[in-house]
């Protein structure tokens, strides 16, 4: 007789991810060519993903919407334990699930996260299932407490709380993404403040034009003496980072999961935001090669 899994075992199974999934489904999902194809297709609504951050914290999520800023997606966390389902929440049947097991959307924790956190594409839900989940609004707090049989299970509560914390953390990262370039201003084609700063590099620090270009382009950092001299001359400290505006489409492309391996490799040898750093490397390559940003990122060797 099959033993009913305890809540603890269910939670451990969730954390272990795919620990008890049908082998055939798992093989199909993680087959290298299938993974590569899904990666190249890009991120779009209806996709099921594994999310993994730099601390190896993971979750399943369903992409519901790609934001106006395509670096941000709206997701609903998914649980492979149907017992985690909210009352009257639609549960994805096993036959419709890319994992081959039933999935429960935890719609109360629906929220935004940076697309760079998406790690492994698992497949798509069909349109009708997706529409059903996207339309569902979670019940009020009181209703959940009354109807949720799992609520009495402290391990389930703990896993729910963990997941809520994760989603909060990931949501907060959306505000720390690199700033997008300013919108073009045809009435005022030159940024006077940037122009004055450029002139100060030459007039105050005595740099030659090529040297000023190197500093302005972010290829050489100012030393402390130079920073103090510019501040004394009226420059604002935050302007001295010289993070010149990278094109919006490059900033979007480098955030995509397709480049996660390169971003992680870059992070191992460089400080700072690895996506931004990789974008800068690619932008330098732009001057020497033709093709799209995707082509150029593909040529970068880290």
């Amino acid at each position: 007789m099959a033993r009913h899994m305890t809540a603890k075992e269910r939670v451990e199974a969730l954390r272990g991810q795919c620990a008890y999934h049908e082998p055939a489904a798992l093989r199909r999902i993680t087959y290298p060519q299938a993974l590569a194809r899904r990666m190249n297709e890009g991120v779009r609504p209806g996709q099921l993903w594994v999310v993994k951050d730099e601390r190896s914290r993971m979750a399943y999520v369903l992409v519901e919407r790609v934001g106006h800023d395509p670096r941000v997606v709206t997701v609903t966390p998914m649980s492979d334990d149907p017992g985690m389902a909210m009352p009257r929440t639609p549960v994805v049947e096993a036959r419709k699930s890319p994992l081959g097991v039933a999935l429960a959307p935890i719609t109360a924790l629906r929220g935004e996260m940076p697309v760079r956190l998406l790690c492994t594409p698992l497949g798509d839900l069909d349109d009708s299932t997706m529409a059903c989940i996207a339309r569902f609004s979670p019940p009020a707090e009181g209703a959940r407490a009354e109807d949720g049989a799992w609520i009495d299970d402290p391990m389930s509560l703990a896993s729910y709380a963990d997941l809520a914390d994760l989603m909060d953390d990931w949501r907060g990262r959306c505000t720390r993404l690199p700033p997008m370039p300013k919108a073009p201003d045809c009435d005022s084609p030159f940024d006077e403040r940037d122009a004055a700063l450029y002139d100060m590099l030459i007039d105050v620090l005595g740099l030659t034009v090529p040297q000023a270009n190197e500093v302005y382009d972010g290829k050489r950092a100012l030393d402390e003496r130079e920073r103090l001299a510019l501040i004394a001359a009226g420059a604002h400290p935050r302007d001295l980072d010289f993070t010149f505006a990278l094109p919006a489409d490059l900033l979007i492309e480098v955030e995509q999961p397709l480049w996660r391996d390169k971003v992680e490799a870059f992070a191992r040898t460089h400080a700072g935001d690895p996506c931004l750093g990789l974008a800068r490397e690619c932008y330098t390559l732009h001057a020497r090669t033709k093709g799209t940003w995707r082509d150029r990122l593909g040529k970068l060797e880290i």
Partner: protein
Amino acid sequence: MRKDSIKGNATRREGKAADAVDAARSACDRLVEEQVRMMEEVARAWCPTLTAMCCRPSRNPSVGPAERLAEAFSGMAVIQLHDDPYELRMSDGSTVMIAEGKSGLTGMYVPGGGGDGRDAIHCATAGRQDGTHRRRHFTMLHEIGHMVQNRDRTLARRVRTQRIMDRHDFEERCCHMFASRCLLPDSLVGRYMAWPFSADDAVALYRHSFASRMAVAYRMAGLMPSPGSVTVRTTDGRVSMVAVSPWGDCVEEDGRWKETEDDVVRSRAQWFEVRCLHDGPQSGGAGNRMGDRPETMQGGGR
């Protein structure tokens, strides 16, 4: 059909359509044209015989603008012309191939790459489209355009602080226009082209300049005051490229005529096909249109 001179047309249009011309120009076009005008001034200050070098025919068929410019600018840059595909190792350890059809790269400007305060310019000389090595002249001037924009303080500041276009796109577009204007200055263009333009005009301009067929096509199309295009065909009749007027072409993408066929002037001579709407809008086009001030050739030349 009586042909009017371009300047005659420009004069007649000036009073009525000057405002319309300005209205029709985009802020990007204005910015690029202003930058290129300044580039020409700076380049001529560095090399007073620049126009003659780019246009004066040589007794030695193997010596053209690229060779003359390499010598003239040798004090500012180490300039190397490569006959064979050449692999250039960059300071960051990466390598790029200087050759047509490899990475798509035909030339490269490397700030400070020549040592002793000099830059480096590398150009591939292998002919491709027309087999007469004309492409190298355009490439050389394009790279000199980069050098001008990165060595002159005002131009370098403008490149970095303008906020209408992507910086690299802006710099590249200015270099293209600079090279085009050096090889096909207004004085030369006005001598061999008259409105409505014909394929014979294009052939004459090609034969009396060092420009490639593609450069001639773009220059002619850019000057069209009405919809039209210039097609370049290979010797076996295949379409090599099509340069379209800033006002668009006379035909839709599926080949249907936009306007009454009788209003379109069509001509074909050697590699060029030209069509233009003679009775179309009588405003000057954006892009490479002839200015009111005539170019004066320095030194000798026809």
